[in-house]
């Protein structure tokens, strides 16, 4: 037995088998789709140039090494989200730096999409891309992923009061931006 499979698809590698490839695979198969969904929305439409794939991969690699510290199987998914959020934040920061550089190099062109292909959700993602990652990530986790406030605070590694304030501010900015679009 290489991994403990709990009801609800929760998979926790056995403490003795953390180096077992089968345990790694079981963990990945149980949670990869969920993590990919969260990262897809955090990055807005999954990001670009394989960012989603990179983050999912790195998340499982990091999480697998840290799983020995987790006793409670229920927290596996929360732990994965925390790791994914950390990785996503790095990608968003890198993207912002690149956009800044590209702006100065006069080579920056926003992704233009055919209006016929646009869905209403694209308006939301456009608005999300214009607010800072510190506001956007907790808002997506709480409002889109429907994580509770304590779970969101834990995933973002900030206090409950901070996460509440950031979600409220993100909500306000998004409302304003969407209002401008109408």
């Amino acid at each position: 037995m290489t991994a403990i499979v709990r009801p609800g698809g929760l998979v926790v590698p056995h403490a003795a088998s953390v180096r077992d490839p089968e345990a790694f695979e079981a963990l990945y198969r149980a949670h990869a789709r969920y993590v990919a969904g969260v990262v897809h929305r955090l990055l807005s439409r999954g990001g670009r140039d394989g960012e989603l794939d990179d983050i999912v991969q790195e998340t499982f690699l990091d999480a697998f090494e840290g799983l020995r510290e987790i006793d409670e199987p229920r927290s596996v998914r929360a732990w994965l989200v925390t790791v994914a959020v950390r990785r996503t934040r790095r990608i968003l920061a890198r993207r912002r730096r690149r956009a800044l550089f590209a702006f100065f190099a006069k080579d920056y062109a926003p992704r233009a999409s055919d209006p016929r292909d646009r869905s209403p959700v694209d308006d939301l993602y456009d608005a999300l891309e214009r607010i800072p990652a510190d506001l956007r990530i907790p808002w997506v986790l709480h409002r889109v992923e429907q994580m509770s406030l304590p779970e969101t605070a834990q995933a973002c590694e900030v206090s409950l009061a901070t996460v509440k304030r950031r979600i409220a501010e993100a909500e306000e900015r998004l409302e304003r931006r969407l209002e401008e679009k109408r």
Partner: protein
Amino acid sequence: MSLDRLTTAAREAEPAWEDDRAARVLASAMTRRERRIARARVLRRAAAFGGVVGIVCVVLLRGASASAPVDPPGEPAFAQAQLQGDGGYARD
């Protein structure tokens, strides 16, 4: 469309996470995982070897400093002073 409805629409839109994409990411992750494990093993062994070398060096240095000093043969300072007749200056 209101923010609430957009939020619901975003929640319902699943990423294109097909089986072959998932398998590709998994295969790549497995390779990287093996590489990380191998690197960690090498680092662990290097640290252990370095530790042993360090301990051996410390033991050798302590042994060297504990051995009797090799002083050049000569007269004690007091006897030498008497010999040179300095009027008891060295005794004081």
